[in-house]
């Protein structure tokens, strides 16, 4: 019984790969982080495309996300199957159909690092991000792109790069490049501005 609970935990640590969130524009890393830190929350629409070598065409899912600073994120997938993922402080909950999975982040150091990448970005916590990732900001204020390169081997074995892109005040895409070459691209449109 507990063995399966562990399988489930492993599944859930993978869950975090799909997480992303809105952010504000920035001129340089420090300013970007400062601007992100001012962000208190908001609601966005997302479309996520997963390019998987095994499959003939990309998988598309879409829905809404809500971020409430500093540590609550709700990702509500509507298509193709309804699913709700909630990250609240140290608990990650995934509801899909009748099934509900709960993961405590303290159980899974890898998951913790993923969550840090999302939390760090959303909250503009540069120190938290730099603990596990090397940060690279490129582009202009109109069109910026922030890359997170995992420094932790366990993470690097799963994800080789996370790229957050935005225009001025707005994050509009997040791309996860997985270690096996598959990738997931999420595009984001705000529903309400702060």
């Amino acid at each position, binding site marked *: 019984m*507990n063995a399966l609970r562990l399988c489930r*935990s492993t*599944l859930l640590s993978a869950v975090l790969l799909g*997480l992303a969130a809105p952010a504000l524009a920035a001129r340089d890393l420090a300013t970007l982080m400062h601007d992100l830190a001012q962000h208190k929350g908001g609601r966005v629409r997302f479309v996520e495309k997963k390019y998987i070598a*095994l*499959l003939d065409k990309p*998988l598309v*899912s879409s829905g809404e996300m809500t971020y409430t600073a500093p540590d609550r994120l709700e990702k509500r997938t509507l298509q*193709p199957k309804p699913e709700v993922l909630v990250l609240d402080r140290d608990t990650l909950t995934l509801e899909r159909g009748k099934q509900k999975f709960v993961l405590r982040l303290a159980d899974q150091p890898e998951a913790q690092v993923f969550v840090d990448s999302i939390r760090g970005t959303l909250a503009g916590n540069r120190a938290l991000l730099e603990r596990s990732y090397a940060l690279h900001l490129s582009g202009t204020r109109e069109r910026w792109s922030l890359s997170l390169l995992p420094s932790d081997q366990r993470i690097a074995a799963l994800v080789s790069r996370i790229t957050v892109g935005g225009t001025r005040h707005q994050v509009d895409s997040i791309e996860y490049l997985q270690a096996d070459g598959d990738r997931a691209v999420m595009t984001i449109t705000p529903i309400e501005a702060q």
Partner: protein
Amino acid sequence: MNAARRAIAVWLLALAAGLVVIARADYTADMSAFLPKNPSPQQQLLVDQLKAGVLSRMLLIGIEGGDAPARAALSRALAERMRAGGDFSAVRNGEAGAHARDRELLFANRYLLSPAVTPERFAVAGLAQAIGDSIDLLASPAGLMLKRLLPQDPTGELMELVGALDGGSGSPPSLHGAWASRDGQRAILMAQVRASGADLDAQEAALARIRTDFAALAAQAGVADARVLLSGSPVFATSSRDTIRSEVTRLSILGTLGVVCLLLLVYRSFTALALGLLPVACGVVAGIAAVSLGFGTVHGITIGFGTTLIGEAIDYSIYYFVQSQRARDGGDSDAGSWMQRFWPTIRLGVTTSICGFAALLFSGFPGLAQLGLYSIAGLVAAAAFTRFVLPQLCPEDFRIRDITGIGERLAGGVARLAALRWIVPVLALAAAATVFAHRDTLWNPGLGGLSPIPADAQQLDQSLRAELGAPDLRYLVVANAGSREASLAAAERIGRELQPLVERGVIAGFDSPTRFLPSAATQRARQQALPAPDELARRLPAALRELPLRADKLQPFLDDVARARTQPLLTPEAFAGSTLALAVDALLLPGSAGWSALLPLRAPQGADGRLLPIDPAAVRQALAAAGQPEALFVDLLGESNRLYATYLDEAILLSLAGFAAIVLLLALALRSPARLARVLLPLVTAVLLVVAGLALAGEKMTLLHLVGLLLAVAVGSNYALFFDRSGSAGDRAGTPQTLASLALANCTTMIGFGVLAFSQVPVLRAIGVTVGPGAVLALLLAAILAGQRERRA
């Protein structure tokens, strides 16, 4: 003289026979002697669980000291040794490697284990549906691991296995690769001892090996302050056995020493001491032999009552020495006068005591019944020895130191105490009022009060249990059958009927051994549901027509299904050493009559997050629907409380019956309501005072307190009878000696029982705190009331 020789010969023969019986007796310290003898099936299950079930084998381990990485390293090293050692059927500490094996086992056997495997699922439409669902799941954040498994498991059987589990996350957090407490200050492990709870020696050996292994590992790792904390039933059972053994030894020695010193001080003669202790020795031999013959085994606690017997049986020799001496000094040259004057009183005292103890004989607790038989046999033997053998053994010129002086001083004291006679009814009323005011909190409501486990050990257990999320197995459905297969099949049928209850919210969920070990019939049915390789290869392209996945990517799936069709069926042996073995072992138990499959039910949660009780009618209905009406639904907590309540009621009833018998006997012997009242008043007042004292001290009474009170009445009645006799017979000359013998007897009683009050074993302590004060109070109160009559006379 012929009669004397005959008496001694009979005594020696009886003694020899008793010693032979004792030498061949079986001894036990198993606390289950204080569990019921003729239980209902539910109670039997509880008893079995306590004695040998999962609970009796679950070990909780904590590691403290050093820093977190050091603790985690010690946890891993200790777990490795424990797994290698063979004393444990499972060891869990959150190591990734250990779970990898579980995962591999589940994955390799997924087609035998998954309840979703049916012929329909492997037809074209079913395959299309199942594979489509799996691909949808890839879009979910949960997809990462599934992606890797998709070529092998496109129908998502592993997800089915995962989905069959409930969502509660009970595993402790991991720190540096091993489970840790929430505050991170303790590494924690959970293990299952291989030896049954009934095999305490093996459990003790396993525990000792953990301790030595840990000490060696800690020294090796250089963690000087590292310590290992062990808890769980194996620890409790072995440590309470040790405690009982050492306490019984220590207290018996202490009590005996105290009595010996007192007697030496008074008698100033080793001959007198030896003769005085002989009735006790005979009583102990007779008691143990009787219990061994009557019950087959002798409980350690019963023997522990040797000390308590000293308290009463030594009184007889004291009465004999002190009072026969007076008789002789008074001019009667032989002991015959003692026989006439004092023996009837002693005989009445012995009879009342026997009435008290006889009540215990009928108790449903084998432990209490043993105590009853032990005490009766012991007292009869001691009294008979004092009456028939002791006078023959005493040398012609045998004398003890004259204690008339002490007696006279005591008599003066008693006379002065008479001024306080008004205090007796006042005390009785005050005590009765106190008892009445505390009537709701007098009794300890659970079996816990009898548990010999110290409070700090219970606290450690609770904290480890909470940290480990260890199951408390409160609600169980039990399916019994003649064979393992039959019990598994029954569990499967019950599981099918329990599922609707989960959906209706009657129960939050349930576990079953068949989750990891389906019956052979079910496993075979699943194998037969899988299509042949050619057939599956033909169906796949059709099933995948609408899906973004090509059949040539699924060759691993075809291979795995082909293998699953012919793979050997799962047996418990297949799981050996994995966590799954723990689950199966815990839920599938061999019993005396076949096998029991346990299905623990989880209680639903209320809106406020608290657990609600499970509706037994709904569960029983499901059992009937499953064609298993004889399967049991047990609420272990409720059952143990009910069990205790039954026995408490029984003990109260038996104690009252014992008391009534004593009253009746006294009434017949004394033939005077006034005298009866004079004998009973101090006894009843003493009992009330003791109960009131316990209530005021906040000590909750258990069955054993009740037994203690009965003992106090039995012992105290002797004093009251002597006072009554010396008072009513106008036997005033006898008073100082009688008083002295009573005081001496009372002191020995106080020592014998008093030491028990300091025991850590609640059973012994309960007797100590009731009989010690009870006997003293009975003597004091009887003396006060006697003094009153004396002045009037």
